[in-house]
């Protein structure tokens, strides 16, 4: 059996940590089953890439990129953009809900002199 390189070991530990966090959030009810499945697929793919780094190069060449590591970098950037967009939508929705709440409080505590 080939020994793992330090970078592989580090990445593997991070993947295990991230996957357990996703499972813990699912158990806590703050992550839906669909989201859990998505994240487990992401981390499973990352695990395969860590164990079989040379295979990523053949996948890369299938899509017209020369190096496997480039595929990972490009995919990660796309995923990050998507997650930032999701986070932005989530924050905007929260802001709208807070405004609705503040509006209801203002309408409830209306001060009238003449109306």
């Amino acid at each position, binding site marked *: 059996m080939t020994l793992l390189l330090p970078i592989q070991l580090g990445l593997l530990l991070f993947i295990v940590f991230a996957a357990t966090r996703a499972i813990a959030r699912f158990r806590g009810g703050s992550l839906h089953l669909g989201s859990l499945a998505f994240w487990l697929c992401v981390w499973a793919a990352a695990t395969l890439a860590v164990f079989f780094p040379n295979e990523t190069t053949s996948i890369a060449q299938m899509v017209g990129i020369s190096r496997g590591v480039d595929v990972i970098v490009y995919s990660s950037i796309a995923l990050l953009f998507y997650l930032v967009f999701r986070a*932005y*939508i989530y924050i*905007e929705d929260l*802001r*709208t809900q*807070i*405004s609705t709440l*503040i*509006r209801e*409080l*203002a*309408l409830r*505590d*209306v*001060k*009238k*002199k*003449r*109306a």
Partner: protein
Amino acid sequence: MAEKIAVIIPAFNEAPVLQDTVASVRRVSPTATIVVVDDGSTDGTQTVAYACADVVLSHRKNCGLGAAIMTGLEYAKREGYTSCITFDADGQHDAADIPHALQKITDGYDVVVGSRFRGSHSGMPRTRRFVLLAGNIVTFLFFGVWTSDSQSGFRAFSRRAIETIYLKSNRMEVSSELYGEIHRLHLKYTEIPIHIRYTKYSLGKGQRNANGLKILLKLLYRL
């Protein structure tokens, strides 16, 4: 139905000018109910509003212009107002334009927007003119309604508009979103010329030119 008019004045940190603005509206529209929506001000605007307005709606936290306008419209809806005007608190609008806007509502229009480019706009910086023109183009591309002054804060609404318009935008992008509602609800819309007085104070309080990009991003998000 008896005519019941509200003048909605959204205000955020407008204590130095609010009293004069309310007084100018009252001189022109003595029977209208003046509703100040204090959007979480920290400079004593609320105290000034209590002293001079007929109705004060207070946001406990600053939510933005769009949220303040929607609070005013929701109040007008619940209280059965037949028409309402939104009027900037910073003193740049001329209350003398109110009767003309209300006349258009009486004539059967649902939304009337006051356009400074059809009227006058003394003291407007050239860069502001360019940003406002870009805002008109963006509003047309997003919402399919051409307007000569998409970012105008001077608007009049009929009862039908008060009952049906629902603005989701919290901040400055509300001015453009309104045209989306006009388009979606098939509201009858027109513009009237208004007179804007730019002062050092109002230029400091109004939309900053750099906000244009931010508004565009928010509108993209709303798609």
